[in-house]
């Protein structure tokens, strides 16, 4: 049984179809990159995965659980902007990943001390330990997104959702964020969905690349039909999967 199951999902806003007949199954630990033109329902699909919105028809279920009705601990999210709390310091933001689920949204005493120590470890891994007491507004865009990812991971979600997380970053920062994300993934092996505009990024990071597009198109009424997944690429090994021989051929190779 697959880990994330999207079954026959339709999403309509005010009778205007956005998504139609979306079916996809994802195994645990897969990295799914989602691409498509603007307005093709990529972000809507992510919101459905997040359970921020519910599908008009069909179901989205994670780990065999009944479809969620609101966002919860099992799904972590990083948005392009506004992903961290501006009124908390960098360290408090990471601690928030653990303490917001408590009754008062805070840790006290020893628990607090332990959480802060764990947060400092997370920050060191994100390369933010020197900024622990600063407020997010003083961080650069790349640092803020690293913090947002660190915060999301502190809550230990089953699925991590990234909505164009690197869209606002410069190319250099973007590359280092790729390395950061790949390292984290190798460590945690979690299931990731990432919406991006950048095809290269999608094929570099993703195990699979889902393309959203409108299969039907009415030139007189462009909004008449919704989008669906039109391609589902295997993107391992740079988009050319089965090029490696799976067994040792015992043939001498000339170098």
């Amino acid at each position: 049984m697959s880990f994330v199951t999207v079954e026959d999902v339709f999403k309509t806003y005010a009778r205007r179809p956005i998504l139609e007949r979306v079916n996809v199954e994802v195994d645990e630990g897969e990295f799914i990159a989602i691409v498509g033109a603007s307005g093709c329902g990529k972000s809507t699909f992510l919101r459905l995965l997040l359970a921020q919105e519910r599908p008009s028809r069909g179901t989205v279920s994670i780990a065999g659980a009944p479809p969620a009705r609101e966002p919860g601990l099992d799904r972590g999210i990083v948005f392009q902007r506004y992903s961290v709390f501006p009124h908390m310091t960098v360290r408090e933001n990471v601690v928030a990943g653990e303490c917001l689920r408590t009754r008062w949204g805070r840790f006290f005493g020893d628990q607090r001390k332990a959480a802060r120590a764990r947060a400092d470890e997370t920050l060191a891994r994100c390369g933010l330990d020197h900024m622990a007491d600063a407020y997010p507004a003083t961080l650069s865009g790349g640092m803020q997104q690293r913090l947002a990812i660190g915060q999301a991971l502190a809550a230990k979600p089953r699925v991590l959702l990234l909505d164009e997380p690197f869209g606002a970053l410069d190319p250099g920062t973007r590359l280092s964020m790729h390395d950061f994300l790949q390292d984290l993934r190798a460590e945690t092996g979690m299931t990731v969905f990432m919406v991006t505009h950048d095809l290269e990024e999608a094929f570099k990071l993703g195990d699979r690349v889902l393309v959203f597009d409108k299969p039907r198109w009415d030139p007189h009424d462009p909004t008449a039909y919704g989008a669906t997944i039109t391609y589902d690429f295997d993107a391992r090994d740079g988009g050319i999967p089965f090029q490696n021989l799976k067994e040792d051929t015992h043939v001498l190779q000339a170098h």
Partner: protein
Amino acid sequence: MEPAVAPPRARRRTDMRLINLTPGRALAVFLTLVPFVAVFVAYAIGSEIRLAENAADKLLPAPSTVGDTMVRLTTEGDRRTGRILFWYDTWASIKRLGLGIGISATLGLIFGLAIGLLPLVRSLLAQFVAVLSMIPPLALLPILFIVFGLGELSKVVLIVVGTLPFIIRDMSQRTLEIPQELLVKAQTLGASSWVIAIRVALPQVMPRLIQAVRLSLGPAWLFLIAAEAIASDLGLGYRIFLVRRYLAMDVILTYVIWITLLAFVMDWLLRRTSKRFFPWAEEGL
């Protein structure tokens, strides 16, 4: 070949656009002081002219007379009771104002957060508050006097009635302006509605609350003085309207200057508080 167009001549400072001319520190201080000094000088001249015509003129007492009155009011006790009424008036007014604004701010924060965060409460109360805020508070003053009597309560209630709807509307608007992303993010970290209210929304609207209180201080003073003028036996507004009968301009001016100073200091303290406790909200304050 000669260039067809002469190179632009170096622009002098005065050639710059007006919007780009910024004063240096000394000039800034000077410009700040200009209107204050101008008003004082204009008053002094006006007073001089009137007093030259009629030494007993009461409308524009000389600045020195006002100064003497200030000293007398703040140091000498009342002939009958021995109390220095100036400080009693001040304390009575500040107490009413603080109580009224404090109640308004607390209720405004609670209702504003509830309306901003909870769609159910929003449907229930948003329009009701919008209609309530259209009632002119001073028109309610007679009702307040009838219902709550002529004591402290009706004055405090007038300030609350006058400032609460604005604070509720402002707070609910600010709460609605919190990016949806942050609320979703908090939910993915497992926060309940209650935790979102106290850990995400509350700290983010607190600087806005201080701002709303700053803006409400003006109306609050207005309602306070109006209530005191009509029915009171102590208070800054009461005193001003009392001595009006004797055309005691020196006393009135002293009280007006004092009220202005108090209002200014309160505003300044609130601004400082905001900067001190919410350093992350630096911009926009």
